[in-house]
């Protein structure tokens, strides 16, 4: 660890090896999570599904992720990232096999709902990577982890339909394709447990600090924070309603009411957690000077992440079907690949977004990126059968570049708001990404695809307005003289 550059091919370096092991674990969770959209035509055919039912299935896929993040976060605190990541891989593999062998729509719905858990893998790796890299490299390492892992969504689009149609073939080809992914994930889960360590050998171990709600600085921010938590439960309630007899009829009336009550209970529980953490502050009215930060910053970033990561998840879910229906004569494999290409640029765009943000200023980069996202989605909304295929592909490609750069840019700012609370702020922003995904996919069941892209464009535009209120976080101002000596070290 005495070199200060990250040599990604130096596998003898334990940190680098751990990074590779970890992003691949994340990659596999994404393959499993997004094994659904590219296989749409095959699955709908097997079950004679209505478009409504299919849309519901896509929504269910991301529903459980929101609460799962909290569960997984506390499990990691207790058992360490190594055990939890391999556990998650194996557990999800079992669920995916169950999904692949489902015999009714109800079973499909149930296992897809449970598979939402796999989307919470991100949190685990972030923790693991932060244990292994010093300050100099941790930003880049986490960018690689996030970006390369997200690429799993693209990989699913590229490989699964191919496996299903050309390798296995037949009506049940999709089942075997998913099963293959599941078995690979399970084997990898075991390998992960055997090779990866929670911390570098010989590193001093500190008892992890207890985390609950986020600490905020004043009463106004407190209520702001509480209100910001409402949408998470609201969107789940909408989903429950959607499954109720009033709509799709997957759940009985009684179950639906039970779910409402559970959601309300969860909200009250979370409120009590927030209250507990902030009790001292509420009594005094504000926190000490050095602990102050503006919650507004967190909210803006959360919105930006909702507009970028949230829309990415939603778009990756609907894009293969969109291509399939828009362009006549496209094979399942081709449509899936085109859809998957949206996640393709993750490899470079996400780390690139962080780099741009470091280099050209936070607010400026974020503004450009969100403007790009808005334009990109407007462009996508215009795609119709008259477009040449390569132009449509180009539009998707360009749009995805901005979307993923946006994810990277958000996470480049997160640690600068309040170092001490980086984990919790990242958690909230991440949760908003999932809220976005769930919201967009739920809306997808009500509106047509063009309106859907318009909605994404509008969300990004709102984000663009919000970002103008983002305060440029200050860090060091260090100047390096010609002789290499440093002067003028100031901290905000």
């Amino acid at each position, binding site marked *: *660890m*005495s*070199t*200060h550059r990250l040599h990604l091919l130096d596998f003898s370096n334990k940190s680098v090896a751990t990074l590779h092991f970890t992003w691949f674990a994340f990659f596999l969770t994404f393959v499993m999570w997004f094994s659904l959209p590219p296989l749409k035509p095959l699955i709908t055919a097997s079950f004679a599904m209505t478009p409504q039912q299919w849309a519901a299935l896509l929504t269910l896929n991301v529903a459980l992720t929101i609460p799962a993040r909290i569960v997984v976060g506390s499990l990691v605190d207790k058992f360490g990232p190594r055990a939890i990541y391999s556990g998650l891989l194996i557990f999800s593999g079992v669920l995916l096999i169950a999904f692949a062998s489902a015999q009714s729509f109800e079973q499909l719905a149930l296992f897809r709902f449970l598979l939402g858990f796999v989307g919470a893998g991100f949190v685990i790796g972030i923790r693991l990577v*932060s*244990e*292994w*890299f*010093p*300050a*100099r490299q*941790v930003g880049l390492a986490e960018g690689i982890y996030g970006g390369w892992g997200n690429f799993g969504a693209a990989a699913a689009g590229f490989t699964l339909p191919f496996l299903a149609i050309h390798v296995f073939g037949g009506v049940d080809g999709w089942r075997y394709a998913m099963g293959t992914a599941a078995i690979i994930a399970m084997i990898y889960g075991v390998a992960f447990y055997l090779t990866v360590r929670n*911390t*570098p*050998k*010989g*590193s*001093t*171990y*500190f*008892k992890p600090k207890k985390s609950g709600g986020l600490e905020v600085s004043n009463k106004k921010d407190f209520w702001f924070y509480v209100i910001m938590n409402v949408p998470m439960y609201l969107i789940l309630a909408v989903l429950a309603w959607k499954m109720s007899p009033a709509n799709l009829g997957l759940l009985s009336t009684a179950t639906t009411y039970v779910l409402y009550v559970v959601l309300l209970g969860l909200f009250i529980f979370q409120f009590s957690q927030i209250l507990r953490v902030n009790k001292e502050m509420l009594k005094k009215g504000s926190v*000490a*000077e*050095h*602990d102050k930060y503006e919650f507004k910053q967190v909210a803006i970033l959360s919105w930006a992440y909702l507009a970028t990561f949230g829309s990415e998840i939603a778009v990756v879910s609907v894009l293969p079907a969109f291509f399939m229906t828009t362009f006549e004569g496209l094979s399942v494999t081709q449509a899936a690949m085109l859809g998957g290409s949206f996640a393709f640029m993750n490899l470079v765009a996400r780390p690139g977004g962080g780099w741009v943000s470091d280099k050209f200023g936070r607010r400026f980069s974020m503004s450009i990126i969100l403007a790009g996202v808005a334009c990109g989605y407007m462009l996508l909304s215009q795609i119709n059968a008259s477009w040449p295929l390569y132009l449509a592909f180009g539009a998707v490609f360009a749009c995805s570049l901005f979307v993923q750069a946006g994810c990277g840019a958000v996470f480049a700012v997160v*640690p600068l708001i*309040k*170092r*001490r609370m980086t984990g919790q702020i990242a958690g909230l922003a991440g949760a908003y990404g999932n809220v976005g995904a769930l919201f967009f996919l739920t809306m997808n069941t009500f509106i047509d695809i063009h309106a859907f892209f318009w909605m994404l464009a509008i969300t990004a535009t709102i984000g663009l307005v919000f970002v103008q209120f983002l305060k440029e976080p200050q860090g*060091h101002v*260090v100047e*390096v003289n010609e*002789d*290499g*000596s*440093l002067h003028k*070290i*100031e*901290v905000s």
Partner: protein
Amino acid sequence: MDHLQSALHISFAQKSEAGRKPENQDTVGARIPEGNLLTTKGIAIAIADGVSSSKAAREASQTAIAGFLSDYYATPDTWRTQQSAMRVIQSLNSSLWGRSQNSIYGEGYLTTFSALILKGDTGFIFHVGDTRVYRLRDNNLELLTRDHTQRIDKHTTHLSRAMGADPYLEVDMHSLELQRGDIFILSSDGIHEQIPAAEFKQFILGERDNLETLVDKALPLALHYNSEDNLSIQVVRIDHLGTAGQDDAVQVLSRLPFPPILSPGQSIDGLRIKKIMHESTRSQVYLVEDEKNNLLVMKTPSEIYQDDKAYIERFVMEAWIGARIQSAGVVRIIPAAESRSCLYYLTEYIPGPTLTQLLKERGILSILDAVELTEGLIRGIRAFHRKETLHQDLKPDNIVISTKGPMIVDFGSCWVAGVQEISSPLERDRILGTLDYSAPEYRYNGKISAASDQFSLAVLLYEMLTGKQPYGSNYSKAMDLKSFQRLTYISAMKHNPLVPYWLDKALEKALSIYPNSRYDALSEWLQDLKRPNPAWLTPRAQPLLERYPDKIWKLLAASGWIAAAIAFFWRH
């Protein structure tokens, strides 16, 4: 250390007069230091009443007070308050007792003694005899000490305990949390014997606002009640508690900004970075060169922790701990030549491989080398223990093998007894050491002591001899007492047949899961490492009870039940 500055403020008044006696045999005294001493030692107030039946009474009480007030402040900063005070009192007691024994007039140098030490937000009381310490909180006057007297008949009481009466002295001591506005009263029996308790309380309550008039009026009041004895009283009021508010503490701490991440070629405060020696998530370690071309090592905090106060406190403390420990086996802290522009500290540069590197190159070490290295490490660790400091994080990475022997190069996890007592507004990090090397008690919340460092040393020696861990890979996973109890020691002879039986036994003892079963002192362990312990010359059969404790007890219990059953059926 400046961030621990105590802001303890008190008002104080005292008076001591002979009263109706010809000579004043009472002595009162106080020391109210400023700056660093106020933080590390606090304020000491003491009263002594020379026992009147002895002629040397006056001298005895003076010796006790003067000796206590000077010696207490001379104890090492790192000793705990109670330890410091007790050692001083015991040594004063021995000297008084010695003088009584040697007095050609057969005089006894006897005195009562009560002392109050105020430190940070805690008060400590040390008490022998019938002088008293009272506390007035709100409207309650509470007697905090118990008179050491024996009633013989209605009119006569005898002092049952006094300084100088016996070579062994039992001292009552307790500590209490202070509150703002608390008033403490120390008095000799000339005051509190004669004034009725209710009257005394009313008097204190009435005069609480002005301590000067309180002591001035107390003496005539006692005389009014026909006190025949010397009259002494001390009063102290806590005006401001000693714990610095969190804002203050952090402001002092964050005066120095964190240095940025540095690259070779850059320089800071006239120190040029030559090489990055080590980087971790918590800190960076650079090899630097000063203007006179001396090589030094610079440690800088990781910017991830910029607003983590507990981390900053620990970092500041590292340099302070290091500066206090002088030993050939411990790296020296180098004071910066220029004033620092940011937060870092410097140590001497010790060329040589770390123990990790050495073990990587050589595999395992010869028994002679390993024991010699361990001896050097023990010397270094004892320098820590002498200053009431535990290292807590001994591991191969923290040990550099220099030409002069092994050197301990890190203070990052040290625990200092005296400092922990100063309550800090920061929630401190709980260090659990390095999983493979730290003693079990860190993780099952047992009592941490010097024996915990002994355990880590023994793990190191075991690794030097075998390249393995003494409890296998499961050790680093155990987190509670139960899982530790399930572990069994793997004999070093299994991995390295050259390890003699007696050395293995010495390792096993130092590696006991229970701190109490380890060696009492590192010197005993070292002796067993260097010379075969006669008890362990040859493997002898272990008693069954030691070999299979649980089975034996289960068998015993079962046979008890069987016996009971037989007895039961016999009867019926």
